[in-house]
């Protein structure tokens, strides 16, 4: 669970954004008082900040610039401005990502986890039930046995692992694959999941990936 500070002045959007984050297992904190936003940013002790550019009283860009003088917390800019220049300026002021409205909610969540991962500087090797998972090599090692995963299988497994215990929808898996230039079809996703299952079973990890009818998959 990550604490995410939401700085967005449009109330409907802010509420839905918080709901989206809560459903994804995060803890959203919304800014509703527009005086002293900078202090709120600094004092929120957030893991990540979602920042709108067009705010009452103060511009998001100025806020970001001042905030960066004292804090390293990752910031994702959310904006309805669609000029390349806005993106370049935001990134140069220290934003970690830049997403234009309206955003694909799944993509937004993927970007949030990507930014969180980068900021945590996650070890190259993660562990899952006694197995070493290396995303770089695309391999899982358990009890001296190694299984090499294809790029697609690794993307699926990685997403399931990041959200271990929670349901990952087929839509999310599909979006993650397409986001990595793997434009797979619905049936190809099923094939990839069953191949992943078979490889995990060979390592003695039977029934690791559970299917939830009409919802998605869960990594136990």
């Amino acid at each position, binding site marked *: 669970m990550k604490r995410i500070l939401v700085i967005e002045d449009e109330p409907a*959007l802010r509420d839905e954004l918080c*709901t989206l984050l809560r459903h994804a297992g995060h803890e959203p904190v919304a800014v509703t008082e527009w005086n002293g936003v900078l202090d709120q940013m600094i004092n929120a002790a957030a893991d990540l900040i979602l920042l709108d550019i067009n705010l009452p009283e103060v511009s998001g860009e100025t806020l970001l610039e001042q905030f960066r003088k004292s804090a390293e917390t990752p910031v994702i800019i959310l904006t*309805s401005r669609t000029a*390349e220049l806005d993106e370049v300026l935001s990134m140069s002021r220290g934003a970690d990502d830049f997403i234009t409205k*309206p955003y*694909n*909610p799944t*993509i937004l969540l993927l970007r949030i986890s990507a930014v969180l991962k980068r900021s945590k500087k996650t070890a190259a090797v993660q562990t899952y039930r006694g197995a070493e998972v290396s995303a770089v090599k695309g391999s899982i090692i358990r009890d001296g046995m190694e299984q090499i995963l294809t790029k697609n299988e690794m993307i699926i497994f990685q997403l399931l692992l990041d959200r271990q215990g929670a349901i990952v929808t087929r839509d999310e898996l599909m979006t993650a694959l*397409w986001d990595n230039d793997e*434009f797979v079809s619905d049936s190809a996703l099923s094939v990839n999941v069953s191949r992943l299952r078979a490889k995990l079973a060979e390592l003695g990890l039977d029934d690791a990936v559970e299917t939830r009818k009409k919802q998605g998959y869960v990594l136990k």
Partner: protein
Amino acid sequence: MKALAYSKDRAIPWLIRFGAWVLSMVFLFAFRVPVEAAVTVSVLLLLGAVGAEVWIYFRNKRFYNGLLANLEGLDQKYLLPEMLEEPDFTEGRIVYEVLRETDKSMCERIAEYRRENADFREYIELWVHEIKLPVASLQLMCHNDGQAKYAEQLRRVDDCVENVLYYARSGSAEKDYLIKPVSLSRAFADIAIRSRAELQQRGMTLRTENLGVSVLTDGKWLAFILGQLMGNSMKYGAKEIAVTAEDFPDRTVLRFRDDGIGISESDLPYIFEKSFTGENGHASGRATGMGLYLVKKLCGKLGHSVTANSEKGKYTEIVLTFGKNEMYKMP
């Protein structure tokens, strides 16, 4: 300035002079002035008149020929008054003043339209930002409430909004794009994800090759351009879209090819023209004749070239060519 035409213009003053000379002669004879004196006076008058005429001719010739030469040499004809030196004779000065006044008034008029145009464009940008907020809220609501079927319609609303935005941008005189290296695979993946639901619903497959290169362009504009091409492929019955890039020392060529209904040979030369819908447009009834026109116009502003190849019933291929410029390369 032609001497002959000029002489014709001067015929009346010469007739008047001739009349005055004839009258003078009548007087001179009436006062019994010797013939020799009359001839001498006539010759002197004639010499003076011719001398003056020649002088005026050359002065005018210099001024008007200068005017014409400047006009000839100018790309933007309205800049002519800026190129002229103020003449030192009344006629010339009148022409000069008239030109300057007309020019000034036209420039003011143009500035006014330009300002109005810029205002309108600014308003469109603002309006687009405004409308994107409720669209974004609705999109999140659809997702949070699990109402996927609304999301598709929302995407169409967003597409229409983007069309307006880029139409305004394409017609603007200002340079409001930013050229920097943009990853082709990133740009393509973004628009593929955007259209994923519709692509999968139509059972379409995407194939990409060699998209790991970067091109010098504006990322947002490129995404819009690719989105238009993708929309066309979906609209015109494609089952597969193949996007391939080829890198050359001086340029990168991106081929966007689909196996849709294609474009007939007679329509092909006109597909980039505004409001052209052609056979396919009449058949489907969904064409606006704006998509490829905007693609061409935006490419023009960015300095990319765009061409099309097609065979009716087989394929359509849109080819974008991105130039490479050493100047943009960061050390």
